[in-house]
């Protein structure tokens, strides 16, 4: 209790002493200063103030700090529902009369951003929230100057949260290890504790120390580095596996629609890539319609893309493919023509330039498991999504009457017809389903790659590769093939480079097809002949 009071007393006192007026001359300096002269002024502001200055630093860090041209008063720019508002950064008081013409931006560059990040972290060391404190300590690891170390040393004994304490201990150990005037034994002990950490900054420090003048320090840091490298390598393997799975999920999404149109119906659909492209453009249009609800736009875009691409698929089947039944070469040429028409259509409507599709906030960033292993969220979601789509499709084909009809028609068209199945209708629906799934793939791909007229072209070859490799007409084969190719590519890439990896995978598939022309999972029975 007494400890608590003492802490409180230590850090809350200045806040009574500081009033915003004492910052005014410094803020005026800041407005007038050139970008290269701003760090010392910010330093003074930090020293003269406490956490009340955080909003100022944050706004400046985000590049939203402006000043009013006439009065040189500092204001923050806020965007609410597409409207720009200027508010006082400290009090939050709005200046409704201000427009863009009245204010000028206070510019920031990388040096300033680095400085601001550290300054914010230093202030946040005394935050009430333990996770904020922890991330503040981690932020400061890269720049442990004397001031920071002083603050940490003062705070360390009073810290109650285990995680924060650990991080602070790490920072202090880093400091001890790098102090050349300290006793060698102390430094080595510090280095030994560092070996447990996977932090980047720790490795940076140890690398520097492994060239230290003192041979004992050199040895200790090399040993510590080895320990860290071993652990890091294990995580690097997991990381690579995830990359492979992620690429596999993209391939799966792109090819699963084709597995139906090509695999089940036997139509060589060169316009398959354009169905993906249409799905991606649907996402773009949906985001245009609901610009303030980007976070939810994906949920609208998925069914919309399914409908747009699916209807286009039905249209193509009814108008073109139906008439070319049993003539694969002509179907190939006709669908290739359709793909060119669709590309040009998109070019005319949306311009040849790429369109910008925003990533919803819940899909941005990454899930940090530890300092060396973090999984990017958009890829994680897409991996899950690909598996969901796959399962849904399997259920449709195995459990619904449409699925039953599709399988019947693909196995023996005439017999199915004789049993009263409307083969025409089934053909159209199957093609629509395959195309609709391609549209859904487009929604996912719009989060990863460029949305432009050539989007589909980039995936058509890969899709055919996956379907042929997996075995035509077999959904499970497509799944296995997609993940195999994804993982193989990602494990080859670091050693061979992206270009050679792609070539090697292609060569492997060609050789594989020579050996097993029907792919990984060939269809069995009379229907396959």
């Amino acid at each position, binding site marked *: 209790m007494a400890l608590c009071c003492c802490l409180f007393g230590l850090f809350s006192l200045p806040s009574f002493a500081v009033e915003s007026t004492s910052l005014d001359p410094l803020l005026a300096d800041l407005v007038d200063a050139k970008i290269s002269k701003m760090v010392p002024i910010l330093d003074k502001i930090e020293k003269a103030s406490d956490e009340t200055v955080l909003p100022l630093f944050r706004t400046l860090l985000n590049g939203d700090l402006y000043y009013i041209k006439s009065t040189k008063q500092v204001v923050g720019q806020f965007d609410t529902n597409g409207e720009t508002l200027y508010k006082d950064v400290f009090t939050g008081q709005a200046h409704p009369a201000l427009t863009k013409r009245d204010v000028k931006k206070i510019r920031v*560059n990388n040096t300033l951003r680095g400085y601001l*990040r550290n300054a914010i972290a230093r202030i946040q060391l005394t935050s009430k929230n333990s996770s904020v404190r922890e991330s503040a300590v981690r932020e400061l690891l890269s720049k442990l100057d004397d001031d920071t170390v002083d603050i940490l040393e003062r705070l360390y004994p009073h810290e109650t949260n285990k995680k924060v304490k650990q991080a602070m201990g790490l920072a202090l150990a880093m400091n001890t290890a790098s102090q050349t005037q300290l006793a060698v034994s102390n430094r080595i002990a510090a280095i030994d504790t560092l070996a447990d950490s996977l932090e980047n900054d720790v490795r940076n420090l140890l690398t520097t120390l492994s060239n230290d003048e003192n041979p004992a320090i050199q040895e200790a840091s090399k040993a510590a580095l080895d320990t860290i490298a071993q652990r890091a390598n294990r995580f690097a393997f997991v990381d690579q596996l995830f990359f492979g799975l992620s*690429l596999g999920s993209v391939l799966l999404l792109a090819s699963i629609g084709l597995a139906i149109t090509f695999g089940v119906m036997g139509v060589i659909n060169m316009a398959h890539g354009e169905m993906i492209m249409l799905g991606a453009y649907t996402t773009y249009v949906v985001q245009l319609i609901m610009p303030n609800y980007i976070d939810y736009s994906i949920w609208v875009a998925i069914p919309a893309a399914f409908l747009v691409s699916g209807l286009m698929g039905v249209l193509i089947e009814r108008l073109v493919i139906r008439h070319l039944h049993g003539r694969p070469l002509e179907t190939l040429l006709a669908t290739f023509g359709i793909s060119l028409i669709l590309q040009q259509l998109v070019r005319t409507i949306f311009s040849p330039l790429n369109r*910008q599709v925003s990533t919803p906030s819940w899909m941005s960033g990454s899930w940090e498991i530890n300092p060396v292993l973090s999984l990017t969220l958009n890829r994680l979601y897409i991996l899950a999504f690909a598996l969901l789509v796959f399962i849904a499709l399997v259920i449709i084909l195995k459990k619904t009457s449409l699925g039953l009809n599709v399988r019947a028609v693909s196995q023996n068209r005439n017999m199915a017809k004789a049993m009263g199945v409307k083969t025409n209708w089934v053909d159209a629906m199957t093609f629509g389903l395959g195309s609709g799934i391609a549209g859904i793939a487009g929604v996912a791909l719009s989060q990863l790659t*460029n949305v*432009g007229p050539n989007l589909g072209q980039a995936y058509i070859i890969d899709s055919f590769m996956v379907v042929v490799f997996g075995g035509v007409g077999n959904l499970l084969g497509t799944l296995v093939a997609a993940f195999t190719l994804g993982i193989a590519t990602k494990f080859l890439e670091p050693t061979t*480079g992206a*270009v050679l990896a792609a070539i090697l995978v292609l060569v492997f598939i060609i050789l594989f097809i020579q050996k097993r022309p029907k792919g990984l999972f060939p269809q069995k029975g009379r229907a396959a002949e």
Partner: protein
Amino acid sequence: MKIKTLTSAIVLSGATLIALPSLAAETIKVGVLHSLSGTMAISETTLKDTVLMMVDDQNKKGGLLGKKLEAIVVDPASNWPLFAEKGRELLTKDKVDVIFGSWTSVSRKSVLPVLEELNGLMFYPVQYEGEESSKNVFYTGAAPNQQAIPAVDYLMNDLGVERFVLAGTDYVYPRTTNKILEAYLKAKGVAAKDIMINYTPFGHSDWQSIVSDVKKFGSEGKKTAVVSTINGDANIPFYKELGNQGISAEDIPVVAFSVGEEELSGLDTKPLVGHLAAWNYFQSVETPENEAFIKAWKAYTKNPKRVTNDPMEATYIGFKMWANAVTQAGTTDVDAVEQAMIGQKTPNLTGGIAVMNKNHHLSKPVLIGEIQDNGQFEVVWETDGVVAGDAWSDFLPGSKDLISDWTAPIKCGNYNTKTKTCSGQNY
């Protein structure tokens, strides 16, 4: 009577019909050889519009040599061999007096033999790898010493970078530029293990493992930067992945040679803020010339949000110089214009004067900018005065002794200063 008026009308209209082609022959024809479809359309369509705007502008001033200018636009569709075909079509069928065109080096290399065979004249407005100087081409974009080398100098001297990732798309420009940079870095004392080189195909979209490699490479104790010659739309997923894997510009800055305002306009710039680009022009530079140019461009495209970029400035300078050279030579004859071009001076849009040198390259200032959240660049560094473009790099063993000089008495694109000979090639 009635029939007579009718026949006279026909005769009259026939006369106008005959008169039309002869009028058309009185124009000066400007060929535009930029891809309007395919993967490079994103960048090249803008340049086509720039040339059309300049032609329009010149015609409003009364044309050249008392004749109107006429732009002839063809679409080589990002298909490299088609550049040669369309170039031949422009020179033989349309008989154009000058061509503005090409973006990628491979397309320039494709049309080059045609230009030399038919003695055409082309203005090439994009930064490129150097190692070339043709009598028939004027290079108004940056040579490596006007973009890549100053950028690396900035990284080393101002940001204290010690390790370099040279990442590029797999074709001639990035490969040659990286070869020059590698030689330059080694000459500056950077060890081979501190240089990582990586190539990816055109339109590469899965950057996970490469970005993760960069991250690993950057976590070995020394300040690291990425020097990016990644071209076209592959940049967008690259920067997205950088943002997703949490690499900020303060940790590992990326300096790009192919990312300008136009590329950024199709992109959510939040994760890119603070990354760098090296160019000879930025839209954000405040000069009266630039302001007028931006205003004219927005008015011409009828789009207040359209941005300008470096290759546009290069097109602008090239066009102005060509117009001056034609006026000075009093003819559009290629040989006369070529000689009149050398020494031409035109104000840069960023201040200072661009000069066309004897080696068909420009002297221009070099700027380095940080990407801002509005898709513009904030200039953080610039050279004192202008830098003369060097056709043959001083850092490659094969081209160290070569110079290009298209004035008498040398008149050679690859003159060896040691052996005092001009190699047999045309360029």
